[in-house]
């Protein structure tokens, strides 16, 4: 009697995340109420700030782009049951790869050659940064959670010593490189749409968004429509079965981590080539970590990840408008709200699973004469 009936798939991927989100928003509303503001007005400002204000949709989609890359990165590793916590460092080093290519070649190569080269470098550097933890996991059993976290700090150290040293722009003391020349900059959306006669407000949204969507299609094909993807998922479901089936586990671990690191590295394409147009410290700003929540919430599927990324993008952008609108709501409050959403949608994602499953089961087993 006490066994929990399985939750139907539509409820698992559709209903449960929405219920979790609503609970998180309700609790956040209490927090807003506690500092003496009207939660309904806060939600209103947040939605308008995320989608309706001038240029705000562009900002939301720009954040979304970052989260898609880091969310995909986490999901690919997760399909092989690997927890890649190193998206932050892999994106950081990916930015270094893209930045080095641009700094070295932006005077000689045209954009059509340079930008693809820089994108490949970002992915390659990101993948390379994931390789050492992957190798240690595959052949030495060092847990990838620990090693990837450690590699985040190493990446931060590498970037500081480079940007405060050989790469710093002379004549000033902010640790950033010089700006790339025009041909190394990925065009903004307002430039592209402006060229075909559509005027939109300035925002950091750029063509990297298209790359992010392409990456989603790539991950979907890779995980569900290739032999490699099959091997990855088999490994994720049962390492013993994978070994029995003749899948070479160490090699699959390394390949999955490399793809994961490469995707994280691509996040730097948006930041370094698309927005900042130079190398600087801390451009990753925690997007790598948020990618974990995005991936969990998106159920490790590209479509889910796009939706979750959009949610987090709207939270980031709408949240900063909240900060502007209410002097009582500070960025620390926003962190609380974001934390609650991550808590309810990520960590406690399945808290409501049993009661919801029982409810649906009891509704489904109702006699026919009671129409639903």
């Amino acid at each position, binding site marked *: 009697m006490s066994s929990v009936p399985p939750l139907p798939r539509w409820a698992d991927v559709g209903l449960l995340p929405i219920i979790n989100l609503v609970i998180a928003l309700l609790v956040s509303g209490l927090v807003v109420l506690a500092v003496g503001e009207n939660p309904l007005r806060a939600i209103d400002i947040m939605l308008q700030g995320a989608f309706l204000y001038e240029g705000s949709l562009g900002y939301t989609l720009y954040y979304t782009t970052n989260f898609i890359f880091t969310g995909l990165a986490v999901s690919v590793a997760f399909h092989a049951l690997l927890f890649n916590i190193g998206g932050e460092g892999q994106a950081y080093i990916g930015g270094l790869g893209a930045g080095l290519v641009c700094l070295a070649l932006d005077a000689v190569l045209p954009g059509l050659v340079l930008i693809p080269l820089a994108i490949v470098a970002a992915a390659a550097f990101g993948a390379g940064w994931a390789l050492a933890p992957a190798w240690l996991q595959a052949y030495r059993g060092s847990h990838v959670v620990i090693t990837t976290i450690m590699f985040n700090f190493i990446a931060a150290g590498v970037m500081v010593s480079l940007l*405060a040293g050989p790469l710093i722009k002379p004549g000033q003391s902010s640790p950033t490189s010089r700006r790339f020349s025009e041909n190394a900059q990925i065009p903004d959306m307002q430039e592209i749409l402006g060229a075909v006669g559509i005027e939109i407000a300035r925002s950091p949204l750029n063509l990297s968004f298209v790359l992010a969507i392409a990456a989603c299609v790539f991950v979907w094909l890779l995980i569900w429509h290739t032999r490699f993807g099959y091997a990855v998922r088999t490994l994720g479901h049962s390492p013993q079965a994978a070994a029995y089936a003749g899948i070479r586990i160490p090699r699959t671990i390394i390949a999955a981590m490399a793809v994961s690191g490469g995707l994280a590295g691509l996040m730097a394409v948006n*930041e370094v080539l698309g927005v900042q147009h130079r190398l600087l410290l801390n451009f990753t700003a925690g997007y790598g970590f948020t990618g974990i929540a995005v991936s969990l919430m998106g159920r490790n599927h590209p479509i889910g990840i796009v939706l979750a990324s959009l949610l987090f993008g709207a939270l980031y952008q709408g949240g900063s408008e909240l900060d502007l609108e209410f002097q009582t709501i500070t960025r620390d409050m926003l962190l609380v709200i974001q934390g609650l959403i991550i808590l309810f949608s990520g960590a406690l994602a399945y808290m409501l699973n049993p009661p919801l499953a029982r409810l649906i089961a009891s509704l489904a087993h109702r006699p026919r004469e009671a129409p639903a």
Partner: protein
Amino acid sequence: MKSAFRLLAAAAVSLAAATVQAADFKPAVVYDMGGKFDKSFNEGVYNGVKRFTEETGIEVTEFEVTNEAQRQRAMERLIQRGATVLLGVGFGQADAITAVAEANPDVQFGIIDVFWLDQPNLRQYSFKEHEGSYLVGVAAAMKSESGTVGFVGGMDVPLIRKFACGYVQGVKSVSADIQVLQNMTGTTPSAWNDPVKGGELAQSQIDRGADVVYHAAGGTGIGVIQTTADAGKLAIGVDANQNYLAPGKVLTSMVKRVDVAAYQHFADAHKGMFSAGVVQLGLAEGGVDWAVDEYNRDLVSGEIEAAVAAAKEAIISGAITVHNYEEDQSCPF
């Protein structure tokens, strides 16, 4: 310190005399990643902002950034909402403020810790932290009995190496034999707000013989001060006067009057006296100094006070030149 107060007094008098300016005077400030209650750099700015609000009754709109892209967006949104005077805090805002200042020539901008930009509507405040650090270096060296003193920096960036370099020069001016232990807390912005690690670094320096530890680490420094106080050694505070944090255990503080800069920026704009250019705030201008008050009075002997005063005179007169790390990105000491 004196000249800072003179400047303040003058500002207060002229404020009282001036009639209220045009109604569309709307000041705004964008804080840096550390947040406005870091008990240090950003909080100094906050104190200046608060003083301006108290004296004039004019609210200053505030924003605290959490990521790079937010800087420019926040400035643009503040201006869209009617801000006419905007202050950016920290060198991280430099590029954003350049872009926004270019697009909004009618808005009066200010930025702290930057000296290398060139905009007709931008005032830059740059502090000579190396001069103030030299003074506390002299005090540390004279107070030290073990012949070893320490330095704990926040995030490893050129600005903090500038503090360290001035400090070392001050220590070595007392005696070339005194050893200076140096540690940076980290390489990510969390290094500004990690009191536990700050405490550990201070402890390790104490274990290696340091008996005076100077911190330039924002919120991390709270841990440095606490640990040195618990170990019965002495700390040196930074940015704000932190002598009160552990009375009798903080030798002195290297005060950096960011509050003066923030106050001055808004007060000048309010009086219609805004001007672009670089404002250098060193010992001579009262922008940096060392702090002696009732909390550390007993720690500072007459001998130390005389030596520091002499060093201060010499720096102001130009007899001593303190090396500025930011000029050549290296420290000769």
